[in-house]
């Protein structure tokens, strides 16, 4: 675990130093002469040996200093913090919706695995999983926003009216619907498949037969034994999807002009604002590690056979 964290630090540090361009020169400004650039180097600590710079870097990150945005002249953490809530709203909603819908769908197919509806669901989920999110987003905009005119085509709030209170919540919810649908669709498809196969595996297991032999009703055996066991690998999968959710969110935010981190990333890449992009890479990496840790903890708590190392 700590090795992975250290690895992430090393990787981002190396990347920060691989970036073309000379930070000292940029800092000193245009028209700076050699001595001014040298002074900038000393000020930025760039003349120190690399291992020392690395330690300083780690120290900074740990205390919440991710550098300064080239473009916005503000700390990276501030820039990110401002754009974080919309993205969290989008990703959180998509995660909740897809987890619920995916598990329910998966359960329904596992009930009768050989039926026509199960096969149809299998094909549909595979197709849903193959759709590029940004394209589906465009299709949704064409269908629901342009043709039918019932849902907004983009943004998080109505640009013309400023709602307050409950009306504001409803307005945001309306704007949230299409982006969440698109982001959640492929996750739902994946979870449906994983849940379906996990449940099928549990239901066919020996202990279920034993439970039936002991007189336990089919539904009760399912609810008390098969289902909890089946949900464990599902939870693991959900925990591991954070990285994909992030990349999905970046693209969806672009299609729907959602004012979150995804848009920030695109802007930063256009203006070559490396500290911001690197800051985001760092944050997402740690978030993924955190999610994995959390999933492992849940797993070890719930399954007494697994001891947490």
């Amino acid at each position, binding site marked *: 675990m700590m090795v992975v964290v250290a690895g992430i630090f090393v990787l981002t540090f190396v990347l920060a130093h691989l970036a073309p361009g000379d930070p000292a020169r940029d800092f000193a400004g245009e028209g700076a002469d050699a001595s001014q650039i040298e002074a900038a180097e000393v000020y930025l600590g760039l003349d120190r040996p690399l291992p020392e710079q690395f330690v300083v870097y780690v120290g900074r990150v740990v205390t919440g200093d991710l550098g300064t945005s080239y473009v916005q002249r503000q700390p990276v953490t501030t820039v990110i913090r401002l754009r974080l809530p919309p993205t969290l709203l989008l990703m959180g909603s998509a995660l909740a919706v897809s987890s619920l819908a995916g598990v329910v769908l998966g359960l329904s197919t596992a009930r009768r695995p050989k039926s026509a509806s199960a096969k149809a669901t299998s094909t549909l989920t595979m197709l849903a999983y193959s759709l590029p999110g940004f394209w589906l987003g465009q299709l949704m905009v064409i269908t629901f926003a342009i043709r039918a005119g019932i849902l907004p085509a983009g943004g998080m709030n109505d640009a013309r009216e400023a709602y307050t209170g409950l009306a504001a919540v409803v307005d945001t919810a309306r704007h949230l619907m299409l982006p969440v649908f698109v982001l959640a669709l492929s996750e739902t498809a994946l979870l449906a498949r994983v849940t379906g196969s996990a449940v099928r595996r549990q239901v066919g297991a020996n202990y279920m037969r034993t439970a039936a032999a002991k007189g336990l009703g089919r539904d009760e055996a399912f609810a008390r034994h098969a289902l909890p066991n089946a949900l464990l690998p599902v939870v693991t999968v959900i925990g591991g999807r954070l*990285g994909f959710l992030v990349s999905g969110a970046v693209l969806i935010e672009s299609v729907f002009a959602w004012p979150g981190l995804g848009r920030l990333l695109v802007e930063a890449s256009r203006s070559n604002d490396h500290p911001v992009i690197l800051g985001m890479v760092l944050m997402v990496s740690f978030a993924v590690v955190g999610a994995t840790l959390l999933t492992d903890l849940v797993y070890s708590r719930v399954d007494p056979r697994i001891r947490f190392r």
Partner: protein
Amino acid sequence: MGLGLLLFLAAVALAAEQIAPANPFTTSPQDVLLAPSVSHPMGTDQLGRDIFTGVVRGARTSLRIVAGVVVIASAVGLLVGTVTGLRGGLLDDLVMRITETVQAVPRFLLTILVTGWFGVGATTVAVLLGLTSWPLLARTVRAETLSLARREFVDAARSHGATGAVILFRHVVPSVWPGAVVVMALIASRIVLLEAGLAFLGLSDPNAASWGALVNNAGSYLDRAWWMSVFPGAAIALTVAAFNLLADALGATVDDQS
């Protein structure tokens, strides 16, 4: 069926010049925003460029990048997976931690970062995606190698005087290959989506037709020209589905054999 789709795609990509000889970037001011018709089966865009040509040429771009990524990721993944599976011990631990690190870093964001420095050429994208896609393959191969290493034939080979490298290539790799190919197909399907996503954000070679870029271009014309979005996007979806079908089919074969 997935294989059939893929072969069709490969044929289209290879024969791109024959099917759609026109230059996809030729603009034609009088043919702006035309709906699909006989002369333009998929319509035209806001500059009069033929969408059909763009889609056909785009197949080549996508498959080229996918091929590059799969080659790199497979080379690294197979090597890492088999060596750590056979050796075990400290090397195994270290490599596993490196694998987890690579898996934690969001490769989409990373590619956005690096293409900002080194340009958006197909090589850069392929190398970067390849270097970040091997962990899944390495883990799968390692797991299979571990179960293989306990079987007798490895000992038998050793007793015949076979060295480590020979065991690796003549025995272990052929055995893990069927499982590895399934993962390769899955990686391919993910890469098509990632590459299209990057192109959608404008991070693709402007000199090569790209489905993602076509979809991006369609963004401002959704109200007037649905065909600009539908056809390139469908091409992406079909290609991804083809690889997924292939992975399913290969996986089923592997299950049947074991």
